């Protein structure tokens, strides 16, 4: 079946089986390799993309459900988005595998809660796992992107 949606701001169309997951379609048909599989169950956040601005797990999201919606992957942020800059400045990653999902979840968090507390960050990003354990600096990055902390003042 043919499915049409907006992908990173541009119209897109793809011919899929009804049970194809969005993760596989984005990687294999559109070459968007920032969308990554870890758990395959929708519990780890590596495959997070935004569908109409809401973070979803693309590994368990049927592609036809995206029809008529707007999908954003981290490629769609262009590389110089304030959240991306904050993650780089705060050194909020090691291997980087979970980072695209973290950045997209943070983008949504800050749209809803411009100045989140640590607790609000933990709640919003608690479903995005990072095995390297960069959580402290990920919190820093969110605060930095929110403009609520100046890292240069830290030792």
């Amino acid at each position, binding site marked *: 079946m043919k499915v049409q949606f907006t992908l990173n701001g541009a119209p897109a169309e793809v011919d899929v089986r009804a049970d194809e997951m969005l993760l596989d379609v984005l990687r294999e048909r559109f070459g968007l390799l920032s969308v990554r599989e870890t758990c395959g169950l929708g519990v*780890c956040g590596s495959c997070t993309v935004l569908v109409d601005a809401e973070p979803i797990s693309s590994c368990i999201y049927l592609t036809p459900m995206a029809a008529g919606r707007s999908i954003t992957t981290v490629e769609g942020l262009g590389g110089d988005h304030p959240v991306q800059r904050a993650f780089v400045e705060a050194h909020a990653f090691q291997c980087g595998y979970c980072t695209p999902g973290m950045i997209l979840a943070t983008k949504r968090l800050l749209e809803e809660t411009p100045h989140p507390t640590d607790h609000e960050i933990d709640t919003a990003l608690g479903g995005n*796992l990072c*095995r390297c354990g960069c*959580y402290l*600096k990920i919190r820093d990055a969110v605060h930095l992107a929110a403009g609520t902390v100046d890292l240069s003042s830290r030792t």
Partner: protein
Amino acid sequence: ATRREADEALPLIDVDYDELPAVFTEMDAIAPGAPLVHPKHYISENDAAYFGMRPIDGTNICHRFRIRHGDVDRAFAECDVVVEEVFTTDSAAHVPMEPHASIARWHEGRLEVWAGTQTPFNNRMDLAGIFGLKPEQVRIVCPPMGGSFGAKTFVRTEAIAAALARKAGRPVKVVLERAEEWQTMNRHPATLWMKIGAKRDGTLVAKQVACWANTGAHADSGPGVAQKMGYASPGPYRILNVWVDSHCVYTNTPPNGAYRGYGQMQCIWASERLMDVLAKRLGMDPLELRLKNILREGDTYCTGETMHDVAFEECLRRSAEAIGYHTSEDRASKGVCVLMKGMQTPSRASLAIEAEDDGTYTIRCATIEMGQGARPAIRQMAAELLGVPMERVTYPDPDTDLVPYDTRTTSSRSTHVMSRALVEAVRDLEKNGKRGVGEVTDKGGLDPDTGQGIASSHWHQGAAGAVVDVDAETGKIHVRHIHASIYAGKVVRRAAAELQNEGSIIMGLGTALFENITFDGGQVTNANLSDYNIPSLHDMPRITHDLVERAGAQVYGLGETALPPVPAAIGNALAASGIHMTALPMTAERVLASIDSGSSVDEARLRNIRDIVEASVLRA
């Protein structure tokens, strides 16, 4: 055929299995008359990995390592206080976010493999052996990995990809599904019996250790893990009489291998918990007991090594101070731990620096990147030595056709050994202008029957402190504060160094509190990230740490050191509240069971282990 068709075809294959007698735990596997996992022991002819495997015929023991230092029998008789206990650790999964993956192709008579691996040269040697090639007919290219933590060491998916590529006559990519990660390699469960004796003033006199590491159905690096578990189990203390028997044991479970900390989390858990048991018996403060016996500059370890650039005391004092060990009233919730951790020894490291015509420099180095920041660290150190901005130094993906030999990227060795190789390489480059090669060789190794020699050319040192609350009704541990102090010598890239400490502490929290692989009849029952949990932002206590530096010190590795002390620091904080834990992870159920039993010692289990040690001594 498509992937989908292959998936559909799989359940159509009928397999008949004959169930044979099997053993699943290390203690069942060493019991007299236990079924043998391998009726006959085999040792690979290629020991590029330096494990020196020594199986015991007619048993499931594939390697035994021993330390014989002083006379423990005589020494125990002279002690005022002797305590002993049995400790256990469950298996754990590495859970790199990116699964194991490799691509293989046969090209112009050679095997070429692109792999997520920490061990390119070991893989080249092993693949050459498997496919009957010369090592130089195998090429391994290593792009950065999405995490590893020891999981992607030695041959994992590479041989499968290569065999399929040869059969198919075209390139083949193998990517593991998440559930397959739990079948591929995990962390060694272990049982450790330790006995320690002291004078009434707290002076340590003797220590005896017998431990068994469950290596699963295939040895892999298990003998190395068991050896490190053995030689690090006395801990960073002056003890004149030490007796250690450490065993690597086959069982009918998935293989266990390298895992951040490499056997030393297990022995530090046991050793450092036992120190608090001893302190309690002596009526001494656990911190004071440690400081009284800690290894200091110029002291001799039980392997005969003289300790240099020693920072145990400084790390321990800093950790104690950070958690307010002496300043607060509620000592009852606080615990400390100090550790020594070895680095792969012997080992060899080399790299080359090539001067390009455009004024840039290319590093040819086998150190792989898995998120630990080794490549930027090596680039930065090279840039500093060359006196150029870091942007002018590139570091292409390691390719065994192009990089000089290196043992492997493990045991927190790379930043350290490559910092030394770089000095040589820059000196060589200055001499000949175009290409400079630097090589460092760290000799060493231990006699497997006496444990004498050089265990580690370079000791990683650290300590941790924890403050915990326990819900006495549910057994749930609430960590209020965890602090680790790790000897860094000299920090190269501060943010990356901090991340290594923080990541190790967080992984240690998982090990301490909830990570364990569960089995039923040898089959893993929680091989997914819904049933097997790793720490998330919801699990973060107050975490602090410091990187201990000294003027003029070498660069020390930091990849693992902050993981092993976390469980014992938390366990000792519980002990300070009267809750005696012997098993990892310290799940709520286990904590509750310990509270309910009045934290009593399991005398029957101790007797059983004593019998096993006796029998093993007689057999030897």
